[in-house]
């Protein structure tokens, strides 16, 4: 029973949060922000599986995010594909791309991997910007509504529930993965690649699994954001988005599932709150990032957990 709580307590916490928030939040404006938090949490969760558990950096995840977002825009508009199928195709396409380029890219280590993924992200962003025939170029393009069995998904409340339920499922999948032999192999790779290989772990294969999975998470989140906004622009898949994802993952705490949600929430809610500072918005954001990282080095959730544990004992 204790094992059950240790593994799935987190899933229940997130599920409870999703279920209760609509009764606490005063207006649909806040539900909209909450939906955005959930959507970004999905992408950051995937990235955290790659960075926090497998220990592989990616500065190009906005590229996968963009594939998901543009799939639901381009396929229905130009090829008459139903939106739900386009969403599925986008996730599969991102996973396939990760599978193909993963092998050579994941051979690189540390900062070299960072620059290779960065390059990949920039190449994808350039395709979205320049292939204006399909993508509408720098101005972007409108995204059709998601229709399931004649029911049209629109509005903040609907998307709150879609993204909230998906996040709970994403957390469930991540928790299951981490507690499986695959999860243990990933953590072994994180601690020492050589030691993991000596133990007989197929390092390249497990890194690839984490990479493909995180690409799928990012593409799903990208598709949701595009469908929710009804518009997609190259900024969706830009370099700054990749940096934002990494920042969310690190701020919340690498290797912490709850940290992914906290990091996504902080960097989504904070800019909304900081708009009252007008011109001083960026100064405040930069300062907060520095202060959090100096005082909570392991990320918000792991650092606070450590603090509580120390106080309890």
């Amino acid at each position: 029973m204790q094992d059950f709580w240790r593994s799935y307590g987190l899933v229940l916490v997130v599920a409870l949060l999703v279920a209760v928030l609509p009764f606490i939040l005063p207006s649909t404006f806040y539900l909209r922000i909450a939906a955005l938090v959930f959507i970004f949490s999905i992408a950051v969760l995937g990235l955290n599986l790659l960075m926090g558990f497998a220990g592989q950096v990616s500065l190009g995840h906005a590229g996968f995010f963009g594939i998901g977002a543009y799939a639901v825009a381009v396929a229905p508009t130009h090829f008459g594909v139903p939106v739900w199928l386009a969403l599925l195709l986008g996730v599969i396409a991102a996973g396939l791309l990760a599978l193909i380029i993963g092998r050579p890219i994941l051979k690189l280590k540390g900062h070299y991997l960072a620059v290779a993924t960065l390059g990949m992200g920039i190449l994808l962003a350039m395709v979205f910007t320049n292939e204006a025939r399909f993508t509408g170029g720098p101005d972007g393009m409108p995204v059709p509504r998601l229709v399931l069995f004649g029911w049209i998904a629109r509005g903040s409340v609907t998307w709150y529930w879609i993204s909230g339920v998906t996040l709970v499922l994403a957390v469930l999948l991540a928790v299951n993965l981490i507690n499986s032999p695959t999860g243990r192999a990933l953590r072994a790779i994180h601690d020492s690649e050589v030691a993991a290989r000596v133990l007989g772990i197929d390092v390249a294969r497990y890194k690839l699994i984490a990479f493909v999975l995180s690409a799928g998470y990012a593409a799903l989140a990208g598709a949701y954001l595009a469908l929710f906004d009804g518009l997609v622009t190259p900024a969706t898949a830009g370099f700054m988005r990749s940096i934002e994802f990494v920042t969310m993952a690190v701020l919340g705490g690498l290797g912490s599932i709850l940290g992914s949600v906290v990091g996504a929430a902080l960097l989504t809610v904070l800019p909304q709150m900081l708009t009252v500072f007008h011109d001083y918005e960026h100064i405040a954001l930069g300062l907060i990032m520095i202060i959090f990282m100096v005082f909570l080095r392991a990320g918000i959730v792991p650092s606070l957990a450590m603090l509580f544990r120390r106080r309890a004992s």
Partner: protein
Amino acid sequence: MPEFLQFLFSGLTIGAIYALVALGFTLIYNASDVINFAQGEFVMIGGMVTFFAMAAGIPLPFAALIALVTAIIIGLLLHVLAIEPARGASPVTLIIITIGASIFLRGVAAIVFDKNYHSYPGFAGSEPLQIGGATVLPQSLIVLAGTLLIVVALWLLMTRTMIGKAMTATATNRLAARLVGINTALIVGLSFGVSAAIGAIGGILVTPITLTNYDVGTLLALKGFAAAMLGGMGHPLGAVVGGLVVGLLESFGAGYISSAYKDAIAFLVILAVLFVMPQGLFGRADVERV
């Protein structure tokens, strides 16, 4: 042929700035293992402070000096206030701190100055020179000469002075450097100051050609980082070569293949090089201890 020369000169000019940014990355990385993503902001500070000092009626040499000193002070403050307090944190935590610092510096620049593009006249006039049928701005030659001068000065500093040797020692092994009596905290701080100065000089030199704005640092940091990795991280010569190669690829790619995809061409080549040489052009394969 004139076309070729034209692309060559513009590629070298922009490549020189990437090289300076990459050098800044390399110096700080060597001394402290930090990838400083606020490196591009030093270039921005160099250009912006010079412009606004000149607008206030200060003659160019003094305006440039003010910009240089400002950048160095900011570089030192960055180290003392943001990097040093987080000493011992993981590299990725330190990277996020420098990203936070770059957002902060951009925010400050947007308020202290403004959000417009600025430029000032070239140091040797703006009458273009004709070289082999290509038109070259005198400022381009100044950028190239300035870069060469910085590289030589840096080389002399690193190989001929005690400070440089202390920097090399700190880069090689921080603990061992401390044991022989080197004040490593001071050396790391110094590397931030020197990096800031190099970036600022790049900004001061290139602004008459490329213009400046509070936001130019992001793209420069990205290209400079890519250039440093292409050359092999931690390798000063690699950083310079990497910067020039990225600049040339962009220029020739834009001229002969597609201007819309010029960044793509540079990154494709970087990816191809890294697949064949995973440690960059000049990097050495290191052995991992278990």
